[in-house]
């Protein structure tokens, strides 16, 4: 008699992998989602076309080295020059990481497993950071490999290359924590995209106007601080302080010294705090 109630549920008696594995699985899942892997073809179009756009200058740069024996883009200036593409990538993909979970209120489901809020947010930020780092670092590595293969006259710029890789990681961390914090304030994807790009454009479009105004007022040293309002120039100024690379601002130099690094750390702290506050509230609903 009793077997009609036995509908075949089986106990799980495989290995229990623990929290580290669940966090890692969440991060990998988010990273795949950013590039649209495992989703429809339509959601792959945007990330991959932006990725290809990022690769184009690298190809042109290698071609210039091979044909004209001339360096194209400097490693240290790559992220600043391509900043619009990176910003569009961040804006279009950051909401796909955070918005669906918020909209369908599945956060309590995640938290019913041994994943804490800190691990959930950490996994999401890590995934976005890795995606942005790949976006900037893959073309850089490509240019460097091209430089080695072409065998340019003089020693290869290994120091500048490694420095720019490290700064790409810092930039990715700053952008992803800020982008996710902004995107997580709305459960709607379109609004998330708009708010991220809005903050970036406000920061970047107002900078030359402020710089010009302060400089024409004769305050050259105060004008230099205006560049730090844009995250790309902020990271570039830290790079030029750490590695002595030339500044890649439109004109003029950055304020010297570790102040820009301090601003960077403070901004990172603000973004992480905003994420923590947002998710503490989202998890309690």
């Amino acid at each position, binding site marked *: 008699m009793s077997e009609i109630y036995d509908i075949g549920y089986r106990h799980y008696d495989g290995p229990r992998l623990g929290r580290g594995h669940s966090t890692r699985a969440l991060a990998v899942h988010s990273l795949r989602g950013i590039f649209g892997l495992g989703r429809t073809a339509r959601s792959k179009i945007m990330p991959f076309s932006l990725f290809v756009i990022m690769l184009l200058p690298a190809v042109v740069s290698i071609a210039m080295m091979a044909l004209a024996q001339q360096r194209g883009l400097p490693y240290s200036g790559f992220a600043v020059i391509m900043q619009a593409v990176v910003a569009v990538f961040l804006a279009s993909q950051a909401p796909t990481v955070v918005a669906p979970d918020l909209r369908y209120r599945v956060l309590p489901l995640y938290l019913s497993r041994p994943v804490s809020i800190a691990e959930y947010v950490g996994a999401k930020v890590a995934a976005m950071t890795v995606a942005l780092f790949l976006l900037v670092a893959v073309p850089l590595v490509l240019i460097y490999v091209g430089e080695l293969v072409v065998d340019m006259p003089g020693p290869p710029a290994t120091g500048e290359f490694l420095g720019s890789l490290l700064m790409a990681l810092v930039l990715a961390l700053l952008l992803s924590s800020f982008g996710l914090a902004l995107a997580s304030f709305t459960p709607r994807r379109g609004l998330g995209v708009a708010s991220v790009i809005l903050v970036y454009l406000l920061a970047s*479009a107002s900078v030359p106007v402020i710089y010009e105004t302060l400089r024409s007022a004769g305050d050259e040293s105060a004008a230099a601080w205006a560049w730090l309002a844009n995250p790309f120039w902020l990271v570039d100024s830290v790079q030029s302080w750490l590695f002595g690379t030339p500044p890649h601002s439109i004109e003029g130099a950055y304020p010297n010294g570790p102040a820009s690094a301090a601003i960077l750390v403070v901004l990172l702290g603000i973004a992480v705090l905003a994420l923590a506050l947002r998710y503490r509230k989202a998890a309690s609903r």
Partner: protein
Amino acid sequence: MNTVVAGITYRALLGRRRIILLLLLPLALLGLAVLLRVFGGDDQRSAVLLMQNFAINTVLPLLGLIAGTGVIAPEIDDGTIIHLMSKPISRPVIARTKFLVAVSLLVVFAAVPTYVSAWLLVSNEDGIAPGFAVGVLVAGIAYAAVFLLLGVVTRHAVTIGIIYALVWEGVVGTFIPGARKFSIQQWGQSVADQISDSAFLRTDVALGFAVPALIIVTLGCVFWAGLRLRAFSLTGDE
């Protein structure tokens, strides 16, 4: 025009925190104008620079994008548009109503702040302030229509809109002069140039091309958006 649809759309765009998104840009524009005024940059050259590089180049496309896609895209995104479409209201009327809502928002959040910030710098000299206000208004109407259509056609409306406004109008327009002919911002500047007679404002597109282009793009996009809504299929979430 349907007042109930308009009311729902206003509430969706202005309710809760979303109004911050619309307020941020005009406030930044006014803030920059005040900054210029304080630091003595209140001459015609810097006024025209601020208007061209910030008001028309950054604030207007972004506001057009937020207002134009915001009136319809979020509803399509979360599927609540089905409640609107299942009512006995003609679909082109829905599209027209939402377009008018977007235009009214652009008047309040783009044209008026543009006038005020230009007036702060040069008051009414040479018609710079009214010129740019009207230019922003007509370009804003065209942007609202284009981005409304984009919001109906694709789910990546905001991203594609950003790429159009940043890459096409910004980068391509700078390097390939011919591309400027097909840029809404340039058409708006032509209208501004017609009204203002400041020597610092120079435009590339003739008014005889800009005005018909603005009218055709606006009417065509609103009409097409209505057509698209008539045979609309709700696809599942990605």
